[in-house]
């Protein structure tokens, strides 16, 4: 399988009154054709900034991609002109945002918003654009599409709007879809419908998906691989089952133990004490040091090197070092 996207050593900063926020601090990952990679982490960990950087949507100023490379199908996106980027966005790479209420223009009909991208990028005739729009509406499960194209966003419910946003993102048949918390604003029964739609779309179109979320249940459902982010870095990455059944980083383990499970009775939730570090002056060593129950002296001083547990499972933690005390045994994994 070829890599459709390769991100290497990505750094993004924002200058604010209070100083420079180091939002993303060296993120490296790749995405294979047709797979779903989930980037999970808590608010402020840099997961949305990472995805915006791939689309080159970091507002400058205040934001800046300091260094790193983003290669999409071998092409370096970092040094493309804004004009070239406009022809890539929506055509090769599309994005779905969290809030379906604000992602659509309330003054335009659904039809004109759906067809806009197609008309802009592919210069197709109005007739053909309309046929394609109807086809997309059907794909995302909106009944009576020809009629509904004439309607405005406020005439649709939240779940329906998110379906339209998905149709919009897919209408130019992109190869990569970035979905930033696509179901967070939706109710669970609607979320289940949308997740099912994602699976169907991937089967039909073969699109690769980067899914940004904080919901581990959603991840267990649709991801192939998972990257766990903390304070601007990927601290662990692996196949879905590596992360859920063989997590190595104390943060990943803590995260898994702090979410309740509907199917278990009387489990005790173990929260992670404390809060993430201040990214104005991120720690020199491991950013989880202050909250980690297994922190050692070295953790505060030097950022841990990446250990490869298997070919696809990587973790950045000093506990993996052979000189560390073998604490693994005391850490129940499940």
């Amino acid at each position, binding site marked *: 399988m070829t890599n459709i996207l390769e991100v290497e050593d990505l750094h993004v900063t924002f200058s604010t009154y209070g100083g420079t926020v180091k939002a993303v601090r060296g993120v490296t990952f790749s995405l294979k054709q047709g797979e779903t990679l989930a980037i999970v982490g*808590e*608010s402020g960990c840099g997961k949305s900034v990472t995805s915006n950087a791939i689309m080159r949507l970091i507002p400058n100023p205040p934001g800046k991609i300091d260094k790193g490379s983003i290669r999409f199908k071998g092409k370096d996106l970092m040094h493309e002109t804004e004009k070239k980027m406009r022809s890539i966005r929506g055509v090769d790479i599309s994005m779905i945002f969290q809030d379906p209420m604000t992602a659509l223009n309330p003054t335009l009909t659904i039809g004109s918003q759906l067809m806009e991208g197609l008309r802009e990028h592919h210069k197709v005739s109005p007739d053909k654009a309309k046929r394609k729009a109807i086809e997309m509406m059907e794909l995302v499960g909106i009944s009576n599409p020809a009629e509904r194209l004439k309607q405005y966003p406020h005439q649709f*419910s939240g*779940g*329906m709007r998110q379906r339209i946003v998905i149709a919009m993102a897919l209408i130019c048949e992109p190869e990569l879809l970035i979905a930033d918390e696509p179901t967070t604003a939706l*109710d*669970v*029964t*609607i*979320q*289940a*419908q949308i*997740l*099912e739609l994602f699976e169907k779309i991937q089967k039909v179109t073969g699109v690769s998906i980067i899914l940004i979320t*904080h*919901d*581990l*249940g*959603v*991840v*267990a*459902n649709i991801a192939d691989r998972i990257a766990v982010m903390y304070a601007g870095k990927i601290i662990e990455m692996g196949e*879905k*089952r590596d992360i*859920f*059944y063989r997590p190595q980083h104390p943060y990943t383990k*803590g*995260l*898994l133990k*702090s*979410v*309740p*499970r*509907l*199917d278990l*009775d009387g*489990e005790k*939730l*173990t*929260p*992670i*004490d404390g*809060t993430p570090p201040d990214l104005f002056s991120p720690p020199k060593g491991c950013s989880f040091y202050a909250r980690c129950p297994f922190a050692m002296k070295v953790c505060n001083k030097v950022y841990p090197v990446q250990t490869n547990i298997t070919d696809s499972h990587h973790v950045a933690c000093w506990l993996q070092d052979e000189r560390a005390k073998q604490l693994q045994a005391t850490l129940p994994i499940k």
Partner: protein
Amino acid sequence: MEKILQVNDLKKHFEIGKGRILKAVNGVSFYVKKGETFGLVGESGCGKSTIGRTILGLYESTDGEVFFKGEDVHGLNEKERFRFYRSMQMIFQDPYASLNPRSTVREIISEPMEVHQLFQSKKEQLERVYELLEEVGLNRDHANRYPHEFSGGQRQRIGIARALALNPEFIIADEPISALDVSVQAQVVNLLKELQEEKGLTFLFIAHDLSMVKQISDRIGVMYLGDMVELTESSKLYDNPLHPYTRALLSAIPIPDPDVEERRERIILNGELPSPIDPPSGCVFRTRCPMAMEVCSLTKPSWKEVEQDHFVACHLYEGNNTTKTSPKITIASQ
């Protein structure tokens, strides 16, 4: 068992102009036992928050009664209501909007004590503020700071300290954790549990996240479009859900475990929530119910105790058909 709160056929209708009426809560009855946590779940717009606010008297009820320790609270005069607020307090969803940004933590927590003139001297009152801060896991140094200096989880702790200031017996917590990160959610839930044990508090816990509600609640009521559809002990609700909506809701919640997710069969509900302005006739769920019968559109199902402590409003369990186990749902689930 002592019923601390009894709600009988509570209705709350809002007039929204042009003679239209939004029936947010449409005849709900339940009781809460002293010392327990009663969870109220449902999707957005089902009326769960309206119930909480109506019980407390933040909204005036359209019809129905609320008894707190045997006293009809909606029949109280102003003076008596003032006294009633001492025993019932509320924790709000948004820890950013529910604390006055211009007040210090000390002022925020002292305000209810000042209004109710709990202490003679400022010194005693300040001591109580310190005590409360420590009870919720903060420390006395935090008293002179402003809300913006705290993280979301810490702010929610301040909101909890304020709710505790009057030594209430009953606390209504309206989505107290939904604005928080997962690792912090567990911190707040554990804190609420500890406080409950220590002080013998009774909670009405309103939330949409059923996995978390099940974690904290002794009994759970499930709401749909202004009606309560099922009510029982939290483990029973998961093991033997009776109402088709409860079953769909439970199956829609993703479980953070890939193997379990793979095996699960999901009941995907068709369509969306109908409008509460013009709800369906008969059973409000019938438009999305995979098991709807003719009778469902004609009469509203009655609220019935089908087994001990297990209430449900569904025509499947009406009349002689009092089977304690659920009839098999035959659904075309993929």
